[in-house]
């Protein structure tokens, strides 16, 4: 662990005259409370937003403040209960017909208005595609700092600074980022990095309805939307995942992995290299800049084991690696490693699994490999 002795110490306030004149001078003591911005969809508040109630609770308890859920849109009032059941202490709602359609700038300015009025010290935004679009606008409009893709949070009770912890540059290191002189502090975290808190239907909390006089006119407007039908389960929720990397050698290698996945009811993902090569779509990238998986079984095939990739399998259960290079770093990061060419292993694995499957269906009580 290496502490840095940067000149900007957390306790020392930068005098207003030394601040960028574009920034409004603020007293951090005027800012209290932890917010989670709730992104909504047809089925209610999206899970990535509810997951952020987990770190929000941790920080709020440390700082002895409330967790406030924030809902913006039209017809979102009834979702406040969902926020509270998952752990928010109170919910701030802006339910307005003029906010029926999302536009990043318009939603951003509504959040900015709320932050200026209620002054929270920390704002969490889910790092969904929409959240990653919206959050930096809000932060910048407030001339506040923002940290993307945090994987953990902690707070310093004395200075009330929130440590926003993220893996920069290839996920070998974790950086502790803090915002010593500015409030609010803002951060995003990717979906499934934090667990969904347990739902408690008996929880109660205050719902504050906020009216907005002026809703800015949208200068970016949705014209049409075509939903892409999902062909398979999202990788981040799969029980078994098969991953492929550059070591497959050819895009055809993924066909073998698909066959294996079919037998296992698994979802196929890949390393960033496989995505860069166009072998697999980006939404199935496993790693720091892709998805974090929580599979019970992860089978990594032809993946070298770069820190960037392994970051996405931290929460996976048993990790099996198949690689013909005995020096591949993945072998020191897997539970079970097989030094072999996947072209020899995968067809045999499929054969044996199909056999096992038939035995199981016949009702053989204790399968032995």
């Amino acid at each position, binding site marked *: 662990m290496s502490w840095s002795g940067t000149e900007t110490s957390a306790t020392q306030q930068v005098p207003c005259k*030394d601040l960028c004149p574009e920034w409004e001078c603020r007293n951090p003591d005027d800012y209290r409370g932890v917010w989670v911005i709730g992104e909504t969809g047809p089925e209610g508040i999206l899970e990535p937003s509810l997951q952020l109630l987990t770190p929000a609770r941790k920080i709020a308890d440390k700082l002895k403040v409330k967790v406030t859920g924030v809902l913006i849109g039209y017809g979102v009032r009834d979702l406040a209960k969902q926020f509270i059941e998952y752990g928010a202490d109170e919910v701030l709602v802006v339910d307005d017909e003029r906010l029926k359609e999302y536009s990043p700038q318009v939603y951003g300015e509504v959040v900015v208005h709320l932050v200026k009025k209620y002054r929270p010290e920390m704002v969490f935004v889910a790092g969904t595609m929409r959240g990653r679009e919206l959050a930096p606008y809000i932060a910048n409009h407030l001339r506040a700092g923002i940290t993307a893709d945090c994987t953990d949070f902690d707070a310093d009770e004395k200075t009330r600074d929130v440590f926003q912890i993220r893996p920069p540059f290839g996920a070998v290191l974790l950086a502790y980022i803090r*915002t010593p002189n500015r409030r609010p502090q803002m951060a995003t975290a990717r979906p499934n990095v934090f667990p969904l808190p347990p739902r408690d239907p008996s929880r109660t909390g205050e719902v504050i309805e906020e009216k907005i006089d002026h809703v800015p006119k949208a200068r970016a407007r949705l014209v049409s939307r075509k939903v892409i039908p999902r062909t398979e389960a999202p990788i981040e929720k799969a029980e078994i995942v098969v991953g492929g990397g550059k070591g497959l050698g050819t895009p055809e290698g993924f066909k073998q992995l698909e066959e294996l996945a079919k037998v296992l009811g698994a979802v196929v993902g890949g390393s960033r290299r496989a995505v860069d090569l166009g072998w697999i779509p980006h939404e199935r990238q496993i790693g720091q800049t892709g998805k974090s998986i929580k599979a019970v079984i992860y089978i990594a095939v032809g993946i070298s084991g770069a820190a960037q990739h392994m970051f996405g399998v931290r929460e996976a259960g048993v990790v099996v690696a198949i690689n013909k290079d005995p020096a591949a770093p993945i072998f020191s990061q897997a539970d079970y490693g097989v030094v072999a060419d996947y072209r020899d292993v995968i067809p045999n694995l499929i054969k044996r699994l199909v056999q096992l499957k038939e035995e199981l269906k016949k009702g053989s009580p204790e399968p032995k490999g």
Partner: protein
Amino acid sequence: MRIVVGMKWVPGTQSVRIDPKTGTLIREGVPSIVNPHDLPAVELALRLRDRYGGEVIAISMSPPPAVKGLEYLVGMGVDRAILLTDRVYAGADTLATSYVLANAIRKIDREIGKVDLAVFGQETTDSSTAHIGAQTASWLEWPYIYYVRDAWLADDGKLHVERILEDAIEEWELELPAIISVAMRSIKPRPVSLYNKVRFKTRPDTLITWTNKELGLDTRCTGLKGSPTIVAKTVDVPEVPRKKVVYTPKDGDDAARWIIEALLKDEKASKALIKALKEG
């Protein structure tokens, strides 16, 4: 159309070091490249110019060696490139970076001609924050949208874009001037052409440098001073405990047998495997 496109000069590898004192990147000795995710943005800007006329101006807030990256973009067909470089810009977080970029766009707008559109790559390979597009839009108060993979002008002069999300393809309409961020890997960038390289050599004004003398920004707003976030410390990523059992099999079947046995030995994995096979 006058289109400004952003470029970041990033380490060409993932294995880079961080200065423990400042928490910022050590660039010495690390070969750098144009951020690969900026190339689809450059390509989209060039296609818009080719279709509607005008010019594409590349900007980059980077140390002087980034000139090589700007030369590459000129080789692709960018009309001119401006390097924004000054010691007082060093150590900037995304807010302070977008401040310099926004002010460079303002200066282009004032001195070179009206800017209609600014285009950025979706994110960078070295920090992947995806902040810059939205932050620059915030400084300029321009409308913006992310994840764009195509753009065209409608008869009323508004910009229409197609953007790709995980679960939908959307068409959006934006009033100009506007900012768009282009989806990663969405458009294949054109190669560098000899013609453009020659054109660059014969027109030395293609590549210019603005230091803070030209931009005239308050140094309290740039670099480390203009950055609300600081890296307080860095630690190694804690290792995940794994069994690390490595087996060299006799053949493919032996490997398959060993893997299945290993999975059946683990309580949770065995349960998941049997469940999956029974259901499948």
